[in-house]
């Protein structure tokens, strides 16, 4: 009895000594997915796959200035949506449609071009700011040894109030699950590979699986999914006039 008590106390002390600081882990993951020290631009190819209905592809040019949380997205393909654009300035997200030559308010929480990605997926990561870690455990995700963290929003304004996140030992986010306030799984995101540009990491492929939308095929539920591949990445400075409405209008001409 005495021996087991000593053993328990010893294990508790040991685990406290070597306890992982989960908040620190989130900060590192955020840092790798945010580019606050330079601008970032890339070409995103977004393939939206609706089971039973086929695929549609959107190509977009993305310009990010993470240090002041601004971004511009210009749709390059398909032709029917060419020239449409998004501009995030402070807390406002504008959507520009060249057909009506009008800017309308949009929400970061809305779906991007009707895909499974959200407008908020194109900005810097703020996991450490918005969530607290409820629990963490070591798990294996494919070939990766990961921390699986259960997150709960610390404010009531984030789109997903509950999340599960898999962070590999190189501090890269490999998978997330997004839940509703009532704990219903809404979306799964997988990032199987990253590309290294200098000292920075950029996802090469991102998969989004919708947990509620899809189709039942041969008696099995098949999720609607979106695959984003990121190419032509650059960390060169972007002129300030890119982050303006005027730029969106000119790009559409």
């Amino acid at each position, binding site marked *: 009895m005495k021996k087991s008590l000593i053993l328990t106390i010893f294990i508790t002390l040991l685990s406290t000594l070597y306890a992982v600081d989960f908040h620190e882990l989130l900060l590192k993951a955020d840092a790798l997915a945010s580019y606050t020290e330079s601008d970032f631009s890339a070409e995103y190819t977004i393939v939206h796959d609706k*089971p039973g209905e086929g695929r549609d592809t959107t190509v977009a040019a993305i310009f990010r200035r993470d240090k002041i949380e601004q971004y511009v997205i210009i749709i390059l393909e398909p032709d029917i949506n060419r020239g449409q654009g998004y501009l995030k300035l402070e807390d406002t997200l504008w959507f520009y449609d060249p057909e009506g030559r009008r800017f309308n308010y949009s*929400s970061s*929480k809305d779906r991007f071009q009707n895909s499974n990605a959200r407008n908020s997926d194109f900005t810097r990561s703020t996991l450490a700011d918005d969530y607290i870690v409820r629990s963490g455990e070591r798990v294996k995700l494919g070939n990766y040894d990961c921390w699986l963290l259960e997150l709960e*929003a610390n404010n*009531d*304004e*984030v*789109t*997903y*109030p509950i999340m599960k996140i898999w962070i590999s030992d190189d501090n890269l986010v490999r998978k997330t699950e*997004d839940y*509703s*306030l*009532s704990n*219903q799984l*809404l979306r799964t995101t997988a990032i199987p590979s990253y590309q290294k540009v200098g000292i920075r990491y950029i996802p090469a492929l991102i998969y989004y699986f919708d947990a*509620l*939308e*899809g*189709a*039942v095929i041969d008696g099995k*539920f*098949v*999720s*609607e999914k979106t695959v984003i591949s990121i190419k032509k990445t650059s960390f060169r400075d972007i002129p300030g006039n890119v982050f303006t409405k005027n730029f969106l209008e000119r790009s559409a001409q």
Partner: protein
Amino acid sequence: MKTVNRVKLAVRYFSGHYRRYIFLILAVSFGFAIITTMTSLAAGMYDNVYRAAQQHYGGQLFVLGFHKQYGHLGLIRDDQAVMDAVRKLDVQPDRMVKRTLFFADGILYFAGNSSRQKNVYGVDWDVEADDFAKLDYSEGGSANLSDGKGIIISEPVAEQLGARVGDDVVLKVRTKTGQNNTGTFVIKGIFRDESIFGYYKCYVDRRELNNLLAFEEEDYFSLGLYFNNAVDASELSFQLHSELEKKLPMSSFITRKEEYTFEQGMHWEGIRHFVMTLEIFVSQVSELLTAMNLVSYFLYIMISLIVLVSVSVTYRLIIHERTAEIGTMRSMGFQRGDILGILLGEALLVFAVSLVIGALLSLLVLWIISLFSFSFIPGFEIFMTKGRLLPLFTISDILSNIGLLIIIIFPALLIPSFRASRLELTKALGD
């Protein structure tokens, strides 16, 4: 001569010479049938729109609360102040209905399919039990909803989802601060709705919806008041607004839809309350019906003129044929007043028989119309009940139709009768 005798003679002449009146009766019956059909259909169409609007908005007079910072979500928190104001109304409502509304962003999911809902209503099933029982269900109904986990959806939404009664659907909404939230509901009823107010809507328990939206359990967006008797909604609306203004932040007093839209576009902090009548909500439909009524009144006048000419010509001929007969009556000692009384008695009989035949003819036409679906006419479904055009007979419409016919026909009957009664005896017998 006594009036009774004049009536007896009028009946005897009418029954003896009814063949003379057949064309006249047909003309008047036809006119009355057309007018009755048109007015009862117009009333039925308006009634259909009005009832659909009542079901859609949940009342006849409303107090609404809007919280600008909650986006599309409306909210009333000070229930006590609202109830106090209602109690001070000159006419007390027969029923009050509280509803929560999640506008535009609700999505239903089933087996991978989704359906975006224009309106997700949170209702008190027990308070609105009668209204939901009256919906036209294609499957299930409004029973067994008391556990709060039931949902009623429209037929097109059920088809879009591929769902049936008994299936579990997931409803996704956003809380007042924009977080995703979901609830699972069991489909209890699938209703047909072809009203102008759209069928992308569903009904769930108010407290369950409040919970999903992160509202307090007893919060609501609209208080709808129902009145059994005809009331002056504008006057009551003014009273309610005046009372509420003493205690709550209010919009300006609203009398037109445009004012409502303007007020909605303004900026404010917290909750602002609005008092609205159903007539304001359906004003655009009312304007459409008014335009339709103008067309029908034009037809109405044309038909009236045709009837007037037909009656006038026919009755003159009838009187002309009876000139010798009138002369004989005069030679037998009938006074001019007696002749006029008898002729008017006959005219009254013609009129009464024509009304009965016209009413029966109208019922027949309306029954035939009710057999056909007019869904093929784009947008026309808003005026129909279960895909059919149904008439509504109101006392005021029937009386005004009869009155109008009297105004048109009686001069056409009275003038020839009066002239015939004034004929010189020699001239009458000479003809």
